[in-house]
């Protein structure tokens, strides 16, 4: 094993896959030096600031035999490309009757905590979940990012990698040898019997300490990281809730029609799971507000270890 940052893990995934397949190309407004150095400016393009344009260009290149990797940078810039994402990327394979494949990987950093204010801070992944035709990963560690991103690049479908912007310096271990992680498999980080806590993205790291504290109090917490938002591994979540009878979902996005609502409903609409539930579902989410700039305000918006601990206690009461 070796220790790498989240940022490095993402870069390694891209580098390895670009090495492997010369049909992979890379598009972003700032071309990463590590990529241009290795693959040249022909395959690694610095684009004008035209996310809609180059998202569409990636789609057309994908339909013409290439495997583009697009980095939108901040997820809020992806909204500029939303017509291409929604009307074209997500629908094109279906509406043309499956006659061509469109393998594209979109990378984007999301979240908050950087005092970047509303136009540079957001966790809007649930907006994309309601669409059909896009797969989505939400990696919470360097290990997950590298393994999932490599699978994403190999996918014959569009995949969005929602990466936590304030985790790029976060370190973690990865194997020396090559590995990939399958899309659509949740990761059980901690087994437990009293409550299931599903964490999304970076929220895992605020939840683990809460679980430790509860452990000392004799409460056994199961933590599940879905890792992939679409397809969602509901079976693992349901099985866990059937065991524990309690479901808490932690997300740094607003609750309304969020991924947390989907996960909650995946449990409560399922007969066996519903029957096993001993407490209402609990969403621990960011407040549904645009993200403010000032530290006192921004820190209030996102869940933290204290709020998570309090939230879990609530369903145990």
């Amino acid at each position: 094993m070796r220790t790498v940052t989240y940022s490095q893990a993402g870069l390694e995934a891209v580098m390895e896959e670009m090495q492997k397949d010369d049909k992979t190309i890379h598009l972003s407004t700032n071309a990463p030096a590590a990529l241009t150095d290795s693959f040249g400016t022909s395959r690694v393009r610095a684009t004008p600031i035209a996310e809609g344009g180059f998202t569409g260009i990636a789609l057309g290149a994908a339909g013409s035999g290439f495997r583009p990797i697009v980095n939108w940078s901040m997820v809020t810039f992806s909204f500029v490309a939303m017509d291409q994402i929604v009307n074209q990327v997500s629908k094109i394979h279906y509406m043309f009757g499956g006659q061509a494949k469109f393998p594209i990987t979109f990378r984007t950093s999301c979240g908050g905590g950087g005092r970047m204010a509303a136009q540079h801070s957001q966790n809007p992944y649930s907006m994309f979940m309601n669409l059909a035709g896009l797969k989505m990963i939400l990696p919470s560690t360097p290990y997950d990012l590298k393994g999932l991103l490599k699978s994403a690049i190999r996918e014959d479908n569009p995949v969005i990698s929602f990466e936590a912007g304030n985790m790029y310096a976060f370190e973690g271990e990865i194997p020396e040898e090559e590995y990939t992680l399958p899309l659509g498999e949740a990761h059980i980080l901690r087994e437990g019997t009293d409550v299931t806590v599903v964490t999304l993205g970076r929220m895992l790291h605020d939840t683990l300490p809460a679980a430790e504290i509860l452990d000392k109090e004799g409460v056994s917490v199961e933590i599940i990281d879905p890792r992939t938002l679409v397809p969602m591994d509901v079976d693992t979540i349901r099985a866990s809730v059937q065991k524990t009878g309690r479901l808490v979902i932690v997300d740094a996005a607003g609750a309304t029609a969020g991924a947390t609502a989907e996960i909650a409903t995946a449990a409560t609409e399922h007969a066996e799971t519903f029957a096993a539930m001993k407490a209402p579902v609990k969403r621990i989410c960011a407040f549904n507000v645009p993200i403010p700039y000032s530290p006192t305000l921004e820190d209030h918006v996102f869940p933290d270890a204290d709020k998570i601990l309090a939230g879990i206690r609530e369903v145990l009461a």
Partner: protein
Amino acid sequence: MALSAEKQLEMLRTMQTIRRFEERASEDYIGGAIYGVVHCYIGEEAVATGICSALNIDDRIISTHRGHGHCIAKGADLNRMMAELYGRATGYCKGKGGSMHIADFSIGMLGANGIVAGGIPIVTGAGLAAQLEGKGQVAVSFFGDGASNAGPFHESINIASAWKLPMIYVCENNLWSADTEAKGTLALEDIAARAAGYGIPGVIVDGNDVLAVNEVAEAAIARARAGEGPSLIECKTYRQRTHTERKEAIDNRPAEQVAAWMERDPIKLFAADLIEREVMTEEDWKKMEEEIAQEVLDAVKFAEESPFPDPEEALVDVFAE
């Protein structure tokens, strides 16, 4: 370079095929066998034909909501087109797309597109692919005057010029976008003037003269194949029908404008020219018309005899396996 007689007759055949196919599509739309919405290309056939007749099968194009003409000009199969309009399982998109989404990637037709200007970036990506492949292919974006006011036009043509992509941007300026006159939505007479904003050539051509269109296309394509980058071609043309087919369509365009352009019907003009130049006889033309009429009837028959897709097919093709 003078075009061979054969080539010219092929071009006339293409134009007439588009015409007849759409006349039938319109009829069947009104009759109820075709659903949703149908936008006819009738009156603009010289554009798609003039451009596509200068392309190879491995060159790529993209179309708009008004897509039948581009499909046929690029060589699409009438049977599978009509079956798609009929919503049948044998259609190009297995009935999932309909008139606004016919595509045939095997002949470099990357699809009709229902979002105005939405296809322009996509086909620019085909231009990037062509550049990366280095085999001298080009890509052509067809779009309307209305689309030229939209952001994706600007972003795409700018990127193509910055990267010298082998692209041809073909603006079909038919003076209207739906019920809105181009005049009120841009302060220019000539959309070709926009080329100046990208440092690329912008040419204006009579879009109802298929040979003229073909000539400027050849030049732009040669430039693109030579690695010299994109061109913008503005084809002045007109749609003879209303924006979409309707039972009781109301045309709010000035009657004199419509009449003047009907006079300049691209097929009549070209057929007369070919006869005058003795490339064909009246007889030949009549025969060609009949053959085409039969092909369209065959396509209808194919469509009618094809099954509707199984309802469960609706759940297939969301993702590639």
